[in-house]
């Protein structure tokens, strides 16, 4: 699941050194020690707050203050997974909007980033696993034929599982224009899976009579947020907003001390001495 990955962090450190480390002081890490990564969005009102370092954050793991070892942002490669609703209701113009939004998002990626595409109707399809070949992802989007019902819960589960990687930061964008009508898994089961994942989920839903409660919860659980658009015409803007916000997040790492490794760990992240809004996952499952 996500936190104990010394090997992965070694690769990560290599990437940062190669990039010059930016303004951050060089992170130090003792390999072999379990590390927890927390993806954090810090905002002052609506505006993301830039320029924070390890000394600015206070992280409590089950109430115990931890030493934040490492904070970084832009330099970490991204894994962007799109899980997109291609049920019958997106046929026609909405699908064109969805394709444009997907392409717009892919256009923002850097060469070291990766992207994957999952589409779903009642049937969930892995169109393209994580790859740096963004054209292939774009082609996957171009080929879909909308039909059938909506299994957004099943698809979110698949995307959470397949999206989580050992390298980079994982962003999952789940788009749906309706409510779930066809999943086998229950929303509770998938929210439980989300607690075990280190993926930040941003839900994008078309505003309608039905409230996208599952996506709202999933986003909240993982430290992301839900964007509701009035029309699929606004999808490109929403996708780019998600991406830009995600780019401005911090990735905090620490090695848990003073807490048992088992069970559910409640996380509390604050910025010292400032009243800022923090979005981060609620916790993680240890052990």
């Amino acid at each position: 699941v996500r936190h104990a990955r010394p090997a992965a962090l070694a690769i990560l450190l290599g990437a940062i050194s190669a990039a010059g480390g930016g303004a951050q002081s060089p992170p130090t890490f003792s390999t072999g020690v379990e590390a927890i990564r927390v993806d954090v969005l810090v905002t002052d009102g609506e505006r993301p707050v830039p320029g924070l370092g390890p000394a600015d954050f206070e992280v409590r793991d089950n109430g115990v203050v931890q030493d934040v070892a490492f904070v970084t942002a832009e330099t970490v490669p991204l894994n962007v997974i799109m899980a997109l609703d291609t049920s019958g209701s997106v046929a026609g113009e909405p699908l064109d909007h969805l394709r444009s939004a997907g392409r717009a998002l892919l256009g923002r990626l850097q060469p070291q980033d990766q992207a994957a595409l999952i589409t779903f109707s009642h049937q969930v399809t892995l169109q393209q696993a994580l790859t740096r070949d963004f054209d292939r992802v774009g082609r996957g989007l171009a080929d879909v034929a909308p039909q059938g019902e909506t299994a957004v819960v099943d698809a979110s589960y698949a995307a959470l599982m397949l999206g989580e990687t050992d390298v980079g930061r994982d962003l999952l964008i789940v788009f749906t224009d309706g409510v779930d009508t066809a999943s086998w898994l229950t929303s509770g089961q998938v929210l439980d899976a989300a607690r075990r994942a280190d993926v930040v989920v941003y839900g994008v839903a078309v505003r309608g009579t039905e409230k996208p409660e599952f996506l709202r919860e999933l986003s909240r659980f993982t430290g992301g947020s839900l964007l509701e658009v009035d029309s699929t015409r606004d999808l490109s803007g929403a996708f780019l907003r998600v991406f830009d916000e995600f780019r401005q997040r911090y990735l905090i790492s620490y090695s848990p001390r003073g807490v048992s490794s088992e069970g559910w760990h409640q996380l509390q992240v604050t910025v010292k001495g400032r009243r800022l809004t923090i979005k981060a996952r609620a916790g993680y499952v240890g052990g």
Partner: protein
Amino acid sequence: MRRSTGALVLVPLFVGGVRAQEPPAVFRTEASYVEVDVFVADAQGNAVRGLTRDEVQIFEEGVRQEIATFTEVALPEDRVDPTSGEEAPLPPDVATNEGELDGRIYAIVLDDAQTDRRRSGPVREAAREFITRHMASHDVAAVVHATAGAPPAFTRNKALLLESVARFMGRKTRSAVLERMSAIDVQKEALQAPADPAEVALAPRPGLETDPSDGARAHDARTSMAALERVVRALGDVRGRRKAILFLSEGVDYDTFDVGRRVQRQAADVSSSLQRAIATATWNNVAFYPIDPRGLAARASEDKETGAPPEDRTLGIDSQSLDRERRQSQQSLRRLATETGGIATLDTNDFAAAFERIVRASSHYYLAGYHPADFRPDGAYRRLEVRVARPGVSVLARNGYVRPRRDDSKEERAEVAVAGGTSAELRELLASAWPRPGLTLGVTAAVFKVGAETATVAVAVEVAGRTLPFRRENDRAVNDVEVSLLVLDDAGRVRGGDRLLVQPRLTAQTHERVERHGLRFVRRLELAPGRYQLRVAAREGEEGRRGSVFYDLQVPEFGEEDLAISGVLLTSRAAAFALTPSPDEVVKALLDTPPTAARTFAANDVLTVYAEVYDLLEPAHDLSVTTRVASLDGREVFRTADQRASSALRAEGGGLRLKVGIPLAALSPGAYRLRIEAAPTVGARNVAREVPFQVVAHAGAATADLPPPRTADAGPPGSVARSASRIDRLEAWLSAVEGHTPGTADGPASIVRSWAPAQLVELATDVAVTNALIGDPDHPVLWLVDPARPGRPQRAPYTLDDERRLRGLARDAADRCRRDPLPKVDTDPRRNAQRCVNRLLKRGAVLHTDAAILFGDGTARPDAVPDARRWRVRFTDGRPLGTEGNAGHMELVQALLDNVAPNPAADPTVRLWYIATSAYGQYHERHTRHEDRAVRIFPEDADVQFLAGSLHETFASPRIQSLARSIRLPAGAAHGIGSEQAELRQAEERFRRALERQPAFTEARIRLGRVLHLRGRYEQAARELEQAVTALSSGRSMAADDGLLAYYAEMFLGAAAESLGRREMARSSYTRAAALYPGAPSPRLALSRLALSRNDRAAALRALREALQPGDEDRDDPLWRYHVVQGRDADAWLARLHESLAVEP
């Protein structure tokens, strides 16, 4: 096999045919187009006409621009409503967007935030003068109170505008100088009085940092500027017109130059709100005309209040302070005018001259538009200069504009809560403060009393046929039309709404009708007393035309009056030709045909008028109601009177329903007033309503085009023609019943399929009468008895000639029975007649079932008037695609089979019909919803119980529950879908009944197990499912497709086991299910989730990959069709139904 759409019969709902996709939105103006209006005056101030494009030059930042569009606008200054004539103007009771923009546009902003209370009167007087003397009949205006925050409601109705003006009251905060002077007075008194020295020291130091009203004053200024900005944005939608805002205000009372913020600490904020109002106005090409109501008397009132100010420069105050303050406030008014191309009226009491100038500048001007080469949405100010190459003229135009920022339009776009499902295009029109031309609409509304506190409003919306394009599709004229209604109260709050989407598929004949007479929608709204604006927007899908109309509506407080009159509804013989899909039945019933929004009628037409008079006056009296039509010069051309005793009215609930026919043949072309007046013999007051209308010469339209009059008042009864075709239809039906081959889409089925629901309802009566005549040739037919109300026989809708034909048809049908080659079951004539009738009923049932099933979806003919009692909603993926009239065949069949004698419940064909059509409906997701009725007739039948249980189980699913939450229903209607738990309860009961009758019914047991699991009874669920699994594996099941059922049983058992925490048992079940259907993703997803819950991520991923990439096999998961699979034997059931006719004629 998987179906993506379904249909479900509802008890209620609107209109025929719909499409899921909305056409692309057409968003408004080009971002980079700059429009400048130019008023050019000669030396006497008169407008200069006839300029050409070459004579006008526009410079932006000194660079000459290429003018792309150039128009001279010349509006006559004195327009008269043709229907108002010599008498006082009579406001039309119909609003239309035809030629909507042919008048001037004014917004009158009354700045209560920055007008002294004592000058409220002059402001009201000035606004009143403008409205009554300077607004022409086609001009449109809105009165906006700065602090009200309500969106501007534009109208031509001067009474409404004046009413709003009358409510004006200034509430300006005292000025800074006056505050300072008061503070000085207070301190002087304190210094003179012997007081504690400490208190004196604590008193505020006047005139410097202490200004108690600073915040309030800044707030007032920002409120006024925000009001201006709001009105500008509302006007921004209007292009190609000069837009004037009359701003009655004493100006921004705030020293925006107090940059040190020693006294006025919010100078920057106030200044930027002023700047923003100007910037928004310049971009939207709106001119401000500020008018200072202080006029020449500005100083006097302040002096009266304060006396002479102290001459103390150390306090920053002297005799000039008030003047300076006034000049400063006027400076803001000047800025508003000069920077937007308007004129400020200051220091004068002659407002009339100012109003003349405003009207002149709004009447004759030039509109020039260009695209700046370097346009960027950067918020930058751009200087403009307009030059005219003619000597001796003066030019009035704005001297610059501020480009919008990229997100400005989006951020500020007004949003209103419109009826669900309304497209973005119509939402935009409804949110706009301004009606749009394009698709021509007419709207009328009439208010009727329901109770003391509520009223019902009948609304008719007509889309002009000539502006409605159609495309040809298989000999049909096809388009789709969306109409959305929104009711706003006078504070701009949404108080109601409705939305309809119709897809007319018209025959050539109906198409011609629509082209000539239009398409009409009739709705009904319930509203409390008050003032409202009814906004109606419509669009068509073929060319994307759209339009909107705003209708001002006053709902009177009927409860306050002992004598009142309702609104007036009109229709005419020609108006009855307009295609009216699904009119509100209550409204339609008032006039027999739907009301019309037309107010121009041909001279060969006949009007029918409807109104209600509410009389609760005491003591007993007579009430005389007169209907009168007169020309505008007062010449009466029609009169009829009705007199009633109040006691008679009281017996009818205190209301008189007046319906009058008015033949127009005697009226020469021209404008008329219809007046309905109620005069009681007690009390001093009469009540009346008036409606203006026009009569035009009959342009050679064939009289035969008009439908027969429907009302007794309007001409001879039309029953002869209608019932003649009715008997013809019965004859055709009897022959179709005989000619039809069951199970085929043959000619006879095709004939009855084309009949409209209302015709099928009539047919049910006619068949019942025929059957009675078969049983008893002497049966009387001139009276019909409704079994529900046996004491109230109704006169049959037949003439004597009809009766003669009916008896003949019944005789022929009986003869055919006697000729039947099959052996007679009985020699008793009564029983033989009954057998003959049953045969007719059952063959008729199959005929209509085939007509509904074999020709597609069983929905009504799109151009037919649908049966208002039942509707069909089409849906996909949990969402409604729309509603359409139900064809009515299945309902007719039910009515026919109810009459099978001696007892339909004992008849095998009736049972087969219910089972076959339920199975068919569920399998094809075309739910006819007669399962519960079947259960009542056949309570002991396991198949009937099973199908009813399956229907309720399906209705509990998210796809139908979501649909139920999404459907918008008219008032009083219900879709009949229960909550998830209510549907599950019903399902459980039905499945249990099925299993009581037939314990080996494994499919019913599996479904029962699933329902129990969904109801949270996991142990019971697991028990039932284990029993089903055992039955299937032991071969004790009676099911033919055991593999499919075993898959369901294992999956549901797995889920129940998981809920009980029995992971191993769950894993076994899912594994067995996965083996049964190797391509099915669901068991693999379930296994993956199970693995993850025990922290075996590798196994979870393995199972997930199998779920997503199952190799070459085509993925198939029986769970995807679980909601229809219960009806998979529908074809076999239908075949048995058809066979039953052969063995049991």
